[in-house]
């Protein structure tokens, strides 16, 4: 059974990656969103780089959070509509493992690209040089937390058609600690402080999410898809 538990994970991971690959154009959208909204900010605020530098870390993090939030909505939506979710619920494997596979695929297709492209935005928003490494580390860890927590919200709202914005209400409060420690990591580094403590807290949040979120999402899915 050990084998089959794992196979639940990797099978769904591979499947979701294939699906994302099939819709490359669309899978790239969170990224596009991230970049485009970040270009809106100078338009809405100010083009002066000194003032942009002050808000850069916060803005990059807020936009990464939004991009993840918006894409996490689709995690189960199409599976629900075409009946795949029903099939998932009756696989012999324990539900959390396939879910973890799906969430990992989600992170690989949104959080990871966001992290990799963030230095570009750092340049556009004049982020000071000391902030780049902490930004990469904190985004990598933080977006993983966001995908995991978001999955619980997505599972809770999946059977409500078009529940995307309700989802924001549910998970946004849960996202706030991640945002706080994420920006703190970057800002500490920019201010010349030791940025490892906030990063360590992010790591702890991540560990807790990995342990709890797939379970909660599994419970929520069994519940909501049963009506």
């Amino acid at each position, binding site marked *: 059974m050990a084998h089959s538990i794992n196979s639940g994970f990797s099978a769904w991971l591979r499947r979701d990656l294939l699906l994302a690959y099939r819709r490359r154009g669309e899978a790239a959208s969170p990224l596009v969103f991230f970049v485009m909204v970040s270009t809106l900010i100078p338009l809405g605020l100010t083009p002066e780089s000194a003032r942009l530098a002050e808000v850069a870390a916060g803005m990059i993090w807020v936009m990464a959070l939004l991009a993840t939030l918006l894409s996490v909505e689709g995690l189960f939506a199409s599976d629900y509509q075409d009946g795949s979710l029903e099939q998932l619920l009756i696989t012999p494997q324990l539900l959390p493992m396939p879910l973890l596979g799906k969430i990992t695929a989600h992170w690989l297709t949104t959080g990871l690209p966001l992290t990799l492209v963030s230095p570009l935005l750092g340049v556009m928003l004049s982020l000071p040089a000391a902030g780049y490494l902490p930004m990469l580390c904190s985004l990598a860890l933080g977006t993983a937390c966001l995908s995991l927590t978001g999955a*619980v919200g997505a599972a*809770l*709202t999946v059977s*409500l058609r078009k*529940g995307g914005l*309700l989802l924001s*209400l*549910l998970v*946004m*409060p*849960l996202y*706030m*600690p991640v945002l*706080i*420690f994420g920006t*703190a990591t970057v800002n500490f580094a920019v201010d010349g402080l030791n940025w490892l403590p906030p990063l360590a807290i992010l790591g702890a*949040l991540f560990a*807790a999410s990995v342990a*709890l979120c797939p379970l*909660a999402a599994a*419970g*929520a899915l069994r*519940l*909501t898809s*049963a*009506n």
Partner: protein
Amino acid sequence: MSWQWFHRLGSPRWFYQSSARWLPWLSLATAVVLLSGLIWGLAIAPEDAKQGNSFRIIYIHVPASFLALAGYYIMATAGAVGLIWKMKLSYMVMKSAAPIGAALTFIALFTGAIWGKPTWGTYWVWDARITSMLILLFLYLGVMALQYAYHSADVASKAGAILGLVGTVNIPIIYKSVDWWYTLHQPATIKFTSAPSMHPDMFQPLLVMIIGFYLFYAVALILHTRSEILRRERKTSWVRDLLNTKKQAKADKQAGES
């Protein structure tokens, strides 16, 4: 045998019928405590040296803030009990607790904001406690929205319970992180008047008001739960019997009077 009380407690019917008996007494006590606390606080207690009369807002603000927080834990506990012991009644309590908690959170925010104007010169600042309170309001609204979104009462209550549980894990994290965030940025200008140094003449009415708010919370929760019980059990025979006996009683009364 020892489980009998537990079973009974879980029965909506039992709750509906017995709560009808305590409710008048509880309401009376609430009214007395709240009114006396309000009069004491607003009219009798001395003025604050620094803030003058605007200080009297504390008699609403602090009890409301207390209950707003406590209410979340009450709601989440009810949800957890429902999930674990599959108790219908506690789901109904959970659903009822959400709007009450949200309303109290709103009161805390509103009174605090109004209070801010004379003391800080602005309605809103991003203080740690204020921010956490706002997030708490969102958590409440999330549970409520989920309840309304599902048409099946069963699914709605379980989904709400799961969200409540996730929220309970998160609330301490949120509070700690917001607190930490604020200490990073803390501008020195803004400070709460500190509670412990309060004069007993000011403190005693506050205590009365806190008790009054707890009582009020209980009354409101029972009222909401009763109507929720009716909503979910309206097809059952005991509700129908209830109505029949009521009609019977009315008819008897009329017959007796004439």
